C-alpha cells in the first residue's frame, strides 16, 4: 500500500467512532426532521400527517412573530458574541500571568460555568440574576446609584431586556477564557523573546505576535459563540419566558413553543432548518474571512 493509501486508511479508521455515532444517532433523525418540515406532523398524532410541501416555509416567511423573534435573537448575538470574545481574551491574558493566586482567580471565573448548566443551577442562575436585576434592591441598580446614575428596569423593560440577557450571558465567560488559556499555554516563547529583543513594545508584541498565534482559538470561540447565540434558549425560557410581552421571545423559544406547546412539529422542524440555513450562511462567511486572519502552523493545506 502506498503511503497515501495508508494515510487514507488510517484517516478513516480514526474517523470511524464519529462516523458510527453520526450514522446511528444523528443522520437518521436529521433526515427525518427535514422530511417532517414538509409535512404538518403533529407529534402526538402521527397518523394524521399530510404532505404540505413548502407550506411551512412559506408560512414562516409570512410569520410576523417569527420575524420578531429573529430580530431579538440577532440583536442578542450582536451584543453577546463580541463582548464574550473580548472579555474572555482579556481575562485569559491577565490570568495567564505567572503571579500568585492566578489559579484561584481562574477557578473563580470558571465557577459560573460550573453552575450555569445545572437545573438547580439554571433556576438558581435565573433567581440570582433576577436579584441582580431587581429594580429596587438589586445589585446593579445599587452600583448605578453609587456612581449617581438612575436605576433601570433591566429585564422588566422591553428596551433593556435583551441587553440584560446579554450581560447575564457574560457571566459564563469562563468557557471562552478556558479555551484562550489553553492556546496561550502553547505560545512559542522564542518568538516573543525575539520580538522583545527587537524592541517591540507590549502592544506590538500582542497585536503582531500573540494575537495571530492564538487566532485559531479566537476563530473557534467566534464560530461557536455565534452558533450558540443563535440557539439561545435556556435564559429566555427560565428567566423571562419571552417577556415582558414578546420582547425577549428568542427564535429557539418560539420554536420550542411550536414543537411542545402547540405540538406542531412540522412547523417547528421547518423553523429549525431555517435557523440551520442562517447559521450555516454566517459560519461560511466567518470561515471565508478566516483565510485572511487565522494563522495555523501545522495544517496540511495551511488552512
Amino acid at each position, binding site marked *: 500500500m502506498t503511503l497515501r493509501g495508508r494515510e487514507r486508511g488510517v484517516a478513516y479508521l480514526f474517523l470511524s467512532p464519529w462516523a458510527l455515532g453520526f450514522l446511528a444517532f444523528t443522520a437518521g433523525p436529521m433526515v427525518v426532521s427535514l422530511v417532517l418540515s414538509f409535512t404538518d406532523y403533529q*407529534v402526538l398524532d402521527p397518523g394524521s400527517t399530510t404532505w404540505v410541501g413548502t407550506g411551512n416555509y412559506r408560512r414562516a416567511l409570512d410569520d410576523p412573530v417569527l420575524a420578531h423573534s429573529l430580530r431579538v435573537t440577532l440583536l442578542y448575538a450582536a451584543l453577546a458574541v463580541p463582548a464574550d470574545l473580548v472579555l474572555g481574551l482579556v481575562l485569559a491574558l491577565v490570568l495567564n500571568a505567572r503571579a500568585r493566586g492566578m489559579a484561584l482567580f481562574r477557578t473563580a471565573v470558571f465557577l459560573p460555568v460550573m453552575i450555569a448548566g445545572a437545573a438547580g443551577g439554571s433556576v438558581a442562575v435565573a433567581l440570582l440574576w433576577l436579584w441582580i436585576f431587581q429594580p429596587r434592591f438589586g445589585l446593579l441598580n445599587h452600583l448605578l446609584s453609587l456612581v449617581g446614575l438612575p436605576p433601570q428596569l433591566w429585564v422588566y423593560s422591553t428596551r433593556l431586556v435583551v441587553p440584560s440577557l446579554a450581560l447575564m450571558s457574560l457571566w459564563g465567560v469562563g468557557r471562552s477564557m478556558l479555551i484562550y488559556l489553553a492556546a496561550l499555554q502553547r505560545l512559542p516563547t522564542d518568538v516573543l523573546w525575539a520580538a522583545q529583543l527587537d524592541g517591540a513594545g507590549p502592544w506590538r508584541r500582542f497585536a503582531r505576535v500573540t494575537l495571530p498565534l492564538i487566532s485559531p482559538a479566537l476563530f473557534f470561540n467566534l464560530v461557536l459563540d455565534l452558533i450558540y447565540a443563535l440557539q439561545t434558549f435556556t435564559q429566555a425560557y427560565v428567566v423571562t419566558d419571552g417577556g415582558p410581552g414578546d420582547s425577549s421571545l428568542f427564535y429557539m423559544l418560539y420554536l420550542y413553543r411550536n414543537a411542545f*406547546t402547540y405540538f406542531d412539529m412540522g412547523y417547528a422542524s421547518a423553523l429549525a432548518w431555517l435557523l440551520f440555513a442562517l447559521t450555516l450562511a454566517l459560519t461560511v462567511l466567518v470561515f471565508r474571512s478566516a483565510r485572511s486572519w487565522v494563522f495555523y502552523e501545522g495544517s496540511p493545506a495551511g488552512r
Partner: protein
Amino acid sequence: MHRRSELDQWLSECATRPISRRQFVERALKLGLSVPAAAALLAACGDSDDAGTTGQSAPTTARAGTLQGRVQILVGFGTGNAPAQVPVQEALAQAFMTENPGVTIEFLRVPSEARTKLTTLIAGGEPPDIVMPAGLYGISLFVDQDVWLDLGPMAERDGISLDAFLPETAAAAQVTNYFGSDAAGIVGLPVGVHDHALAYNVGLFEKAGVAPPPSDWSDASWSLEGRFLESARALTVDGAGRNPGDSGFDAGGIVQFGVGHFFREGVFYGFGGHLYDAGSKKAQFDLPGSIAGIQFAADLVNRHRVQPGTTEVASLGAGASKGNEEQFAWRAGKLAMIDMCSCDIKSPYGTDVPFEWKAAAMPAGPARRFAFLNLDVGALVKAGRNHELAWQVLKYFAVDPVAERRLAYESYGAVPPLKVNRDAFVTGIKADLPAVDPQVWINGFPSASPENESWFPAFAEVNDLVGKTFDQIIGGTAASQAMPALQQAAQAKIDEWFRTNTLPD
C-alpha cells in the same frame, strides 16, 4: 391488641346502630387501619350518610388478588414530587400492592418539564399508564391530541358516578367543550381541588378605619365596583398618607397598595367575560362583559391606582424571583388585600406571616361572583398498555374514601374532591394552622369556576394570545381597541382548529 378491642367494639356498634360515613372515616384513620381493611369494614357497616355514595364499597377487595401487571404513574404535572409529599403516595401504593400481589405500581417522578417528557414518551412508544395529579390546565393542553382515555364507559360500567364528587369538580372533569354537554365523557377522576379566596391584612384595615371584607360569600354589598374598590382606595397610601383621589396624591410614590396579587382574569370573569362558547363555536372576547371586565382590571392599576403595575411590582418585591415579588410585598405589609389560593395557605403567603391576616369572600362583579377553581385529576393515557389495570389503580386512589383523603390532603395539600371527605381540608388545616379559617374557602366553591383552565379549541395558542393582549391592556391600551383584535385573531385560530380537527361524538 388495644386496636383489636377497639375494632371489635366498633363492629358491634355497627351492627346495632348505623354509623355515618364521616364518623367511619375518622375512626378508621385513628385506628390506622390499612386501606383495604377499612374499605372492607365500610362495606360491612353499610352507610347511612346520604351525602353521596361512591356506588361501590370496596373496589380493591372485590377483585383482590386477581389483578396482574405493572402500572406506571407519571407525577409532575403540578405538585406531587416534593420530598414531603412522596411518602404518602408510596404508602398508598404499597397498600394496594399488598392486597394485589400480582400488581406493581411505579411512580415516574418528573421534577420538571413534564410536558416534554410525556410528549416524548408517548411519541416514542413508552407511555406511562396514569398521569396523576394532573392540573386541568396541563390536561387541557393535551385534550385534542387524543392523549387521554375517556373514562366515561368504564365509570358507567363500574357504577362510578361523578355525583360522588363535589359538583364543581365533576363539571370540570367532563370537558364539555370537547365531549359535548350531553355526553358522559370524563377526562380524569378528580384527586384534589383548590379554590381561591380573598386574604386581607387585619391591621391595615383597622388602621385605616375601614370595615373588613366579609367572609360571607352571599354578601351583595361586597362588589368589585362598590365596597371592594372603596376599600382598596382607602387602603392605598402614598408617602404622605394620601389616598388616590386626594389632591396632591403622588402616584409615583405609593408605599402601600389596597390590592395586589389579584388576577385580572378573575375580574374579567366577574364582569361576565368568557373565553369560548361551545354552541356557536365562537370566541367570546367581543362580549360587552369581556371588554368591560378586562378594562376594569386595567383601571384598578392605571386609573384607580389601587393595584401595582408590573414596574411597581418589580420594585416592591425585593430579592424574590419572578412570580414571588408580590409574596414579598404581602409579607412586608405593602398589600392590604390579595387573592389567596387554598394551595397558598401553607406557603409563605399564609405561613409565618409577620402580621394577622384573615380570609374573606371574593368580591362580586356585575355579572357574577367569581373565584378560581384549580382542579387536579388522575387521567389515563390512551396509549397506555393496560387500561383495565390502570383504571383499577386510579379508582383506588380517587374513589376509595380512605386512600383519597390521604392522597388529596396529606400528600397534595388539597381539598379532597370526594363529597364524603369534604371535611378533611377543614379539620386538617384547623389542626395544622389554628389561626386560619379554612371554611371560607370551602364556602367559596359554589362561586368557583375552572373556566380559565378548561379546554377549548386551539387552547394553547389562544391562551398565549390572551396573555399578550391582557398584558397590553393592563399596560395602558384601551380594551375597546385591543379586544376586537384579539377576537379576530382568536377566532381565526379556532376556525383553523375546526378545519384540521373534529370533535368526538
